[in-house]
Every structure is written in C-alpha cells, then in structure tokens.
C-alpha cells in the first residue's frame, strides 16, 4: 500500500505546458465573446426603442450588459492567452486551460483513439484550428483551441501516425 505524503519543500506542482497558443487566438476569442454579448444587448436595445413604457427597464440592463461585455471582451481573451498552453511529447498530450477554473489535461499517446481538427467559420478567418484528441474515456478528450491551422494539421498527422504505432485496443 502506498500512502503519498509530502512534507518537504518545494511542493510538487504541474509545470506550464511548453507552447503558447497562436497570438491570433486573442482576436478570435474577442470576436466570439463580442458576438455572444451582442445578441442579448441588441435584442434588449431594439425592444427598448420599440416599447416606450418599458424603455428604462430594457435599456438599463442593455447598457450594463454592454459595459460588462466590453470589459470581458477586452480582458478575458488576454487572460486566456496567458493561461492556455499546450505540449505534445513522445509520450503524451498535455494542455492547460482556463483562468478562473484552471484545468490541466494529460492523455497518453498509447491510449489515443481519434485525432480531429475542426475549423469553424470564425477560426478560418483567423487562420486557426482546434485540435481534439479523444481516448476511450467518454470524458477524457483533450482539446487545444487556437492553434495555427498548419501547426494543427502537422500535429494531427504526427499524432495519428504515433497512435497507429501502438496496436492495442486502448481501453
């Protein structure tokens, strides 16, 4: 039986993955967030102009939402850019995401089942792609957003080749 106990310093922690995502991801995230916020703001604003009795009750929330939205659109993508990192070694895929809810994910190459790259319409504009690596676990997918499209394609090919080298069932 092993009972891990750590009492000396420095304490054990996860190091950041080696690579940052593509700087264009900041623009992509900003546009994405902006669109998300714009939908309710515009809806509330238009309704406020059309319905005079409720104007105050519609325009004030619209204004607050818009202000928060601008703040988020400016701040969050930059925070994310600092915290979203990735790395692929000979053994595993390793990512770190999130700022408020941080998440590190590790998937060993030997257990990888599928490797996909996806490019949404916005991502295509920014020349970006999202790489998704799934394992046999329904909850174990590792996703790298905001990769340069070419990097993602190369990575995908490399990972696919590495995965085929391990013939087992991967469950």
């Amino acid at each position: 039986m092993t009972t891990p106990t750590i009492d000396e310093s420095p304490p054990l922690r996860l190091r950041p993955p080696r690579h940052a995502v593509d700087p264009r991801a900041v623009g992509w995230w900003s546009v994405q967030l902006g669109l998300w916020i714009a939908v309710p703001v515009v809806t509330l604003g238009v309704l406020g102009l059309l319905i005079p009795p409720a104007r105050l009750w519609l325009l004030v929330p619209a204004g607050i939402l818009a202000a928060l939205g601008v703040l988020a659109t400016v701040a969050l993508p930059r925070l994310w850019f600092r915290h979203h990192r990735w790395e692929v070694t000979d053994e595993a895929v390793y990512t770190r995401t999130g700022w408020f809810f941080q998440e590190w994910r590790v998937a060993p190459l030997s257990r990888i089942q599928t490797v996909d790259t996806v490019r949404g319409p916005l991502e295509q504009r920014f020349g970006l792609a999202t790489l998704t690596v799934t394992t046999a676990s329904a909850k174990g997918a590792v996703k790298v957003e905001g990769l340069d499209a070419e990097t993602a394609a190369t990575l995908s090919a490399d990972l696919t080749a590495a995965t085929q080298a391990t013939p087992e069932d991967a469950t």
Partner: protein
Amino acid sequence: MDRRAFLAGGTYTALPAAGAALITAYWVTVGTSVGVALAWVLPAFVVVTAVGAASGEWMWRVTRYRVDAERFHVHTGVVFRKRLALRRERIRSVDLTADPVLRVLGAVTVRVGTGEHAGAEGTVTLWPVRRASAEALRATLLAHAARPGGAEAGDGALARFDPGWIRFAPLSFLTPALGAAAAGGTLQVAEWFGMQERVIGTVGSWFGLAPVLLVSLALAVGLIVVGGVATVALWVEAWWNHTLDRQADGTLHVRRGLLTTRSISLEESRLRGLEVVEPLAARLAGGARVDAVATGLATGEEDKAESRTLLPTAPKQLADQVAAKVLREPVASPTAAVLTPHPVAARGRRLRWALATVLVTEAVVVLLGVLLTPVLLHAAWISALVLVPVAVLLALDAYRALGHTLTGSPVGTGGPAGGYLVARSGTVRRATVALQRRGIVGWTVRRSWFQRRAGLVTVVATTAAGSGAYTVRDAGEADGLALADAAVPGLLRPFLVGDQEATALRG
C-alpha cells in the same frame, strides 16, 4: 426463434386492451345497457388481440439469427428490413430477461450488446427465444471471453440472496416518490370512472374530524407507508433470488427477479474496478451496494443503472467481502482500504458551500416575505433553524467522506489487476470507487480560483469504463499530484516540477 411468439404477442396486447375495454364498457353501460356495451367492446377486443398475436407471429417469421466463425447475423424487421452483422469479438454482453408471460411459455428476450457508445445501434434484441437456445447462444457468443486456466476461474457463487436485505429497500428516494405517485394515480383512476370529485370531497371531509396538522400528518404517514410498500414490492420483483457467481468462462453472472427474471453477464476482462455506493439513508442503516465499473456496459438504456449493480444494498461488511471476491483480492477489498484524509481546507469549502446554499434559499424566502406576506418571514427563520444545522452536519459528513489511496504495486508487478486507485466522496450518495490503475487512460487536474487559495486540487482519472471519469475531490495540491503520478508511473512525471526526489522514491 419460437412459435410461442404468437401466444406472447397475443397476451401482450390482450392485457392493456382488456383494461381499456373495461373502462369503455363502464361508460357505455352508464349510457345504455350491459348488452350494448359488450356488443361494442368484445369484437374490438378480439380484433386487437388477434392483431397482436399475428404481429408476434409475423415478427417470428421475419426474424432469423445465425452465428458463423466471425459474425453474429440477425435479419429482422417487418416494414423496414434490417440486416445486422456484429463482429463476434465486439460482443460484450448477452443479457436474458423473461417476464411472466415469457416464463410461462418457456421463452426469454435476448439482448446482445457490443458496448458501442452509440446507444441503441450497438444493441440487438431478439424476442422471443426458447430458453435453452438462448443459453446456448449466450455460451457461443461469449466464448471468446474465456480465460486461459478457466477451470480455476469457475469458483461459483460470490453472493447469495438474503431476504434480510429487504430492510434496506424502503430507504430510498422512491418511497416518497411512489407515495406521491399513488395519490396522483388514485385521482386519475377516479377520473376515468367520473368519481374524482367524490374522492376529493371524502379526503376534504377528514379535515373536519381532527386538527388540520394532525390530519395532514396522518395523510403524509399514510402516503409514506403506501410508498414504502410499493418500493419493497418493486425491490422484491427486481432482486428476489439474486445470485452473483463467476462462471468457468470468466464471466460474472447476475441472476435475479421474482416475476420477470433477468440474467446478466459481464466479461471479467471488461471489469476495470468496482464502486461501493452508500446512499445516505441506507448508510445510516449500515447498508451499501456494489456496482461494476466496466467498459462496454449498456449505455443510454432504461435499465442502465441496474445492469451495473452486482449486489443490491446489503450490509456494508458483506458488500466489501463481495467486492474483494469479485476483484479476486485475497485479503480485503480495496474499497475497504484505509484512506488518506484530505486537508482541513476542504472542510471549510464544504461548510461554505452548504451555508451559502441555505443563505440563498432563505434570502429568496425573505425577499418574497418582504414583498408579499410577513408569514414567509416567520417561515424563513423557522426553516433556517432547521436547515443551518442540517447543512453543517451534511458538510462535516461530506468532509469525513473524502479520502484516497493506492493499493497494490504499479502495473504488472502486483496482483492480478495491478493495484487500484481508491477514492471516496459524497454524503447524500457516498461512493467509494476502486479503479484499476492500468485502466486509467488519462488525467485531468482542476483547480478553481478558490481552490488555489486553499491549496487544493481536484484530480480526475479518466477511464474507458463506467462513467468515464472518477474524481478525487479537493485533495491537497502536492498530495493529489503525487497520487496521480504514483498511480500511473511515468504519465504525469514529465509535467511535474518540485519535489521530484520524494516522488521518485515512491515510483
């Protein structure tokens, strides 16, 4: 396939048709006379039953199955012809169920599953099949599961049914739910016969007999008793004569059921661990159940949860013994191992969450009280007096539940399964999971901003089995990472910095 399909199809349609006929006949009789009612209802009943029987017969005629060296072929479908060929090595489960009608006819329903995640696509149902043919089919299809040295594998019964387990049955959320359903059902049936108002009137008149509080209490107790009886009845139907045994071909085999018998096989090679689950009420009574953590079990099906359960709620000690036997652990089950507790900061988090939940609830009540009626303000402080201690108790209990450890040694050098990651959490549903360390296919480490301040992390082992991920909640940061590192040597190591030497010794 079997000609019993004709009889089975007929019976299945006859029973609900008879119910509908009874209600219709009642209404027609009210309007006219018994003779007219019968003249209307009987021919319709006969036609419906005949159609049911004919469709059963037809299903039998169009459905064929065949097993060859590589594949299991099924041809079926009346309107849409369907041809399926399942690769035999993909077949994970062959379950037999027989409801009372089929049992009388000596037939069963066979469900063959490939364990693909795509829901119903990976599952083929054959209905009805003669019991002997079904048993033979199961033996054939699961033959590839046979382990070398199968003779020692067939060590017989791992658990036998004990009627004493019934005492845990009513300790379920089903009891109040079924009680409420019984009340609703009574009103519905009364409505069919036009007597709903009379029922409501009768119950309403009871409130005149005694103080309102007493009558309400009596009604609630009555419903709970009805719900309890119904829950026990359901439990007995599902679990009567439960046996769990290990067959010579290396499959775990669960047989159970009073009226509908179910026979569920699970290849041992698919087993990645076990979960010992203690729902709050059962835990207070000293009970626990054992669920399998296995790959390729039926997903997205109505009986998903039940098909995982190897042992229904039974005394905790027995549950641990059964777990040890299922996992072939000679000494004790990993689920009964002594666990490393989590830092005190985790207790603070639980207390804050519990109190915040109460606070939000009370704030809503108080707000409504200020806006609407002062009665709610009294309700708020009275309920707070009850809820705050309950919340604190649950939070402390949740903290006591937290724990983790590793058993066995790393892959390959340990026992038959190479050791387990054991993690426990939960208060309303306390679950202790023992997950094979070689079944772990990745790690996710989570940390919210609050957890970072408290020095805690949540470590999630992802796996192909069961729910796909098993969580060690709120472990100390270094402790949790060391656990993950030691559980699967080499996987997390390249990404760790800090006290490498201390962990290297443990590797």
